């Protein structure tokens, strides 16, 4: 098989050479396979795949500087790849067994971690026994990248959920941030109606058919879409059905504005059409692009769902560093444990620089976290976020997270369109079961 393929490639090149000769010219010395990934112990260079220059890549560049202080010859080759494309590349490389094209380290969405490790264990290196101290991260966060007790990822970007509110709009309704702290969703809805009446503005906005808000509610109640055996639990899930009821109620009462795309969602926030937003702390970056709203924002915890085990904390998104199977493992592990899992200096730099909140608990002791943030009316929001992070219940994503998420999203659309909730969720359950068999 392999021989045949090589033969065909040869034939292809021969044809190409002929074609080239037939017509004149054409620039062609682009070539040269770029990967130098080594098996030799401890080189001094690492290749990393990551996305978002203002956030992840910025953090990597700072980490490179931190590591260079001890290892002056060290260099980091950062390749920018969006998450969608990174997943496509990983799948292509794994499916065609071309592991030598892998970088040393790549960033992975927490929600996709289980799926990739379970399907393509050959892409990863088990770093359980490395110098990384995994107990210095919240358990709910390391759980994403832990499969069968083995650690495959160093948590980086926290998806800790915040309830970011326009204090000026609340004030118009005679309310303050405190009124929204440590409350239940029922209380939240009552207050929301008050705000809507006084200001005409809905509390929240979100993309119709995307279950982010509902999944954050679900996780805050300590539940997920799968049980411990990995079976979907979309039906007979009290926390889920309660969350969906709350969501429907908010949409019906005009407290929750459903929009159709990410751009519209961001627009509703930065154009001041809503009184607040609930999302991962990374949303603060987008909020702060509305410079005219400086000082008008505040952050508090989430309302709780009225079920057993409910908390005021949740998460959405987030990502972790994985060491590939093609890595200079010793160097990659040392780099990660000396930076993202061991450098207060790093986190002190990237917090004000990019709003990147640490998952690494010791970083929270730094005074940088206690600094008041002007945009948020002088509130030390990052210290607050860290205290939220410790309380986030872990989320069982399993390998079929995206199927379940899509199915629940479709069910919500149907329910909002008037379908019976039990029927719609039953369909979602069977869609996921179909995908799993």
């Amino acid at each position: 098989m392999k021989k045949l393929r090589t033969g065909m490639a040869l034939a292809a090149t021969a044809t190409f050479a002929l074609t080239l000769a037939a017509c004149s010219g054409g620039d062609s010395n682009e070539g040269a396979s770029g990967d130098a990934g080594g098996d030799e112990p401890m080189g001094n260079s690492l290749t990393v795949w990551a996305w978002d220059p203002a956030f992840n890549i910025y953090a990597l560049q700072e980490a490179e500087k931190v590591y260079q202080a001890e290892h002056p010859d060290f260099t980091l080759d950062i390749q920018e790849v969006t998450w969608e494309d990174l997943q496509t590349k990983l799948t292509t490389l794994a499916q065609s067994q071309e592991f030598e094209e892998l970088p040393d380290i790549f960033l992975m969405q927490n929600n996709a971690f289980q799926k990739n490790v379970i399907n393509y264990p050959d892409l990863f290196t088990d770093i359980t026994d490395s110098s990384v101290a995994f107990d210095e991260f919240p358990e709910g966060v390391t759980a994403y990248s832990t499969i069968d007790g083995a650690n495959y990822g160093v948590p980086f970007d926290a998806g800790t959920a915040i309830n970011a509110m326009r204090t000026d709009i609340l004030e118009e309704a005679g309310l303050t941030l405190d009124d929204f702290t440590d409350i239940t969703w029922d209380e939240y809805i009552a207050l929301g109606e008050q705000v809507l009446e006084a200001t005409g503005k809905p509390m929240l906005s979100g993309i119709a058919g995307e279950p982010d808000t509902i999944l954050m509610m679900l996780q805050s109640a300590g539940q997920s879409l799968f049980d411990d055996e990995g079976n979907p639990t979309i039906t007979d899930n009290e926390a889920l059905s309660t969350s969906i009821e709350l969501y429907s109620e908010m949409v019906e009462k005009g407290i929750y504005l459903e929009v159709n795309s990410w751009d519209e969602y961001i627009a509703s926030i930065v154009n001041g059409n809503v009184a607040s937003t609930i999302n991962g702390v990374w949303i603060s970056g987008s909020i702060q692009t509305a410079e005219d709203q400086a000082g008008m924002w505040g952050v508090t915890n989430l309302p709780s769902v009225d079920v057993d085990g409910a908390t005021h904390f949740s998460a959405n998104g987030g990502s972790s560093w994985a060491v590939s199977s093609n890595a200079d493992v010793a160097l990659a592990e040392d780099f990660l444990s000396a930076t993202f899992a061991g450098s207060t200096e790093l986190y002190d730099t990237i917090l004000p620089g990019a709003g990147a909140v640490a998952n690494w608990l010791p970083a929270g002791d730094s005074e940088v976290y206690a600094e008041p943030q002007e945009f948020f009316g002088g509130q030390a929001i990052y210290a607050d976020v860290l205290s939220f992070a410790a309380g986030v219940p872990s989320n069982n994503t399993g390998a079929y997270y995206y199927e379940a998420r899509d199915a629940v999203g479709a069910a919500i659309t149907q329910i909002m369109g008037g379908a019976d909730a039990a029927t719609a969720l039953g369909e979602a359950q069977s869609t996921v079961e179909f995908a799993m068999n």
Partner: protein
Amino acid sequence: MTSKLREVPKYAFLSIVALLSVGPLYFMVVSATNTSQDVLGSSMLPGTNLIANWQSLTEFQDVGSAMYHSTVNAVLTTVLALVVSSIAGYGFEVYHSPNKDRLMWVLMLAMMIPFAATMIPLFQLFADFGMVNSAFAVVLPVIATPLLILLFRQAARSFPHEIIEAARMDGLKELAIFWKMFVPTMRPTYAAAAVITFMAAWNNFLWPKVILVNSDYQTMPMLISNFTGGYVIDYGALMLAVLIASLPTIVIFFVLQRSFVAGFTGVVK
């Protein structure tokens, strides 16, 4: 006078179509000068943020390099594709036989399968030959496309056979007939083919993204995609990038559209 009046609906129709077509482009141009917040507020007025957008575009992205790689890939693809596919299309039509018609039909099957299904085996093929990250690997799969061959086959159908016969009488070799008679006559077809091939190559995304593992070789569509991958999207800078990336195709079209002049039939008389 009456004929002038009859022209009115025609121009009105063209104006409406042109307006609808250009509208979004106008939004794109205006947005490139606006802040992210204004773009999201769908502001239709030009702003003053052009320079700031340029700075934030170039702060993280190497636009020059991406334009260079896009240009190399697109030009290489267009030139090779036109040569390989037009001679094949000519061969299919001018020397047509039942067997060649059957082969044409078989070749067309190749364009009917979604690329997502064949991408991985194709990647494996190039990887086995150590051609990952090479410009060859980007262009080779798109040089011979059934669509382009079909285009030239269909166009060759209206190429008068008398010309070929006459040229043969004059002792011209078959390749020379193609090169000296067919190519100049079919200038409009070549122009159309060049436009669509350049456009497809320029906008090609999935395959270059996969085969160009090293992002030093990244092209404009990848650069634009990078913009939408972050937590905070700078819509003003994004629209500027999109505008820059759209220009080459527009210029190519504007230059080549002159070939679509009625009555331009070259040597055919």
